[in-house]
């Protein structure tokens, strides 16, 4: 069922023209939507993870994110097109893509020095 579901979603999203949306505006709107739709509660205020997995930087492919929203696995809440239209998904994705890379463990002295 999941594999049959993917093309439907992709066609739907592409038909909205979300991919062609104005990028800076999408990022700003996506950030606002990220909080308004409660993504931050499980994934952290910048998508760095928490109760749910890390979303940014470097989000999973857009298609995978759509599948997880529309037909979630594990404990992820369902986000149907009614509560999160395709255009909103695209904007949130644009925001997640814009999150800059943070420090790695080797760049943080106390994590780097953490002994096994």
């Amino acid at each position, binding site marked *: 069922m999941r594999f049959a579901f993917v093309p439907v979603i992709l066609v739907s999203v592409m038909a909205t023209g979300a991919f062609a949306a104005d990028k800076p505006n999408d990022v700003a709107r996506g950030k606002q939507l990220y909080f308004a739709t409660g993504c931050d509660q499980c994934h952290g205020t910048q998508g760095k993870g928490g109760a749910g997995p890390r979303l940014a930087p470097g989000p999973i492919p857009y298609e995978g994110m759509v599948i997880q929203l529309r037909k979630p696995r594990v404990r992820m809440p369902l986000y149907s097109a009614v509560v999160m239209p395709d255009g909103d998904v695209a904007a949130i994705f644009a925001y997640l893509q814009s999150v800059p890379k*943070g420090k790695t463990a080797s760049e943080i002295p106390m994590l780097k020095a953490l002994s096994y």
Partner: protein
Amino acid sequence: MVDVLRSLGIEYLAATPGNTFMGIHEAVINYGMLTPPNLRFITTMHEEASVAMSHGYSKIEGKPMACMMHTTVGLQHGSMAIYNAYADRVPIFMMVGASIDATRRSNAVDWSHAATDGPAMVRDFTKWDDTPGSLRHFSESAFRAWKFAMTPPYGPTLLAVDTEMQEDEIPGGKDRAPPIPKLPRISPPAGEEGAVKEVARLLVSAENPVIYADRAARTPEGLKLLVQLAEALQAPVCDSGNRMNFPWRHPLNQSRRSRQVMGDADVVLALEPGDPFTLFARMDARGNTSSALKPGAKRITVSSVELMPKGNYQDLQRYTSEVDLAMAADAEATLPMLIEEVKRQLPSGRKSAFEARGKALADAHREEFELSRQTAANGWDDSPIATSRIYMELYEQIKGEDWSLVSPSGMQNSWAQQLWTADRHYKYIGGWGAAGIGYIAPATLGAALANQKYGRLSVSFVGDGDLMFGPGILWTAAHERIPLLYIVHNNRCYHTEIMQLQAIANRRQRGIDRVHIGCAIDNPNINFAMMAKSLGVHGEGPIENPRDLAAALKRAIATVKRGEPALVDVVSQGR
């Protein structure tokens, strides 16, 4: 009565004062506190705090602390904390003041504070209760209450003590005081020899044996025994985190990989499993179940709780029909015999196979640790502050101290277990038992009280929601000068609930724009540092910039090391 308490080894009695137990209260402060071995009266501002402090104390000290309440209005306040202690299998010695003789009740309050069977309201979640009719009866029942509380499975016990009996003179005078019984040495129930031999046979002949430990290590000895068993078998240990069962950096600790090692297991030994079903099976959102183990895997349980089942409250959780061997016994008491039998049955020809298994597990543990280290860097400079950073900033300052993390860490992604090193029983004591909010602030203060005489640095991560259930505990911390570092995980909401509410609202396709109602703790934001200061506790924060955290922690730790409580309010990520 005070001499009876002292002969039970009780050091502290916590109470919010009440007129039904003024007889004991007066005897404690004017006799028990002034003559050796000295009792100490701990003043609380809520009966739930009295019970929860006793709960935390017992998990560090391994013996009961006493608390006292009114029969009706006090016991009702304390009942949630009693249920937490019951579900966490922790011994507490509780007393309620009971106005039994109706002809001596003098006003409306006396009547509304009286019940013909007060303990009935908590009987479903206490191990035993009694209402003594004489001083001799009190003495005998106190010893029995202590004995039942301290016989595995541990649990809270309750005596309803007649107000007049407390206040009246000893019948016949002081010289006629009843004798104090002899305190027995408790011998916990160990597994039957034949069953232990069979378990050893299954474990040593297994390709992939797994040890699961829930509330298994009751005492420091339990942790040492579990290490001996795991090392003899070179078997992985999955620790639920409800006790400090196994060293966090031991190479055989596979708690972070429990799903994987369970899936590979051909024999699972579950020690005091709280939820046997969830351990051995999976259930989807529609209630469909499947096995978590591969076909033919053997399931063994060792559980003292099965010696004392009760039917109403469902803390026993779901059972699975697929257990092959269910041993009704205390796990820790069974381990010495099991270790001996495992060593006796170890096949000499499989030494290299055991070593290879141990090496593979050690490699996996190291990889998991490295993954945790990398993950901890995510959002390092974010504000609200990442919980991984809070744990690491704290650890950086306490790792050279004799610290004791007295709060559960699950609400912060178990960062302590992921990143810190701990190999002693008091380093971590698990959580609440029944997940009743309001446990952490008072129970961790009770644990800190127990740690105080050992000079340990007690640390508690308390949620903003939990602390607001009974902020009066901060006054108790200051008044009693109990050194404890509270770090408020201030995510400004009831976070678990807001995630659950989002899921339901989305399932109904209504969106989540109103789920803050009833879950958010903002507008106004609570200033916990200011609140702490007003109650006599050193307060830092609210800390919103992660760069300010280290200095605030340093000041707070210095206060705690001087013997006083301190609180750091950290505006944090949800988890």
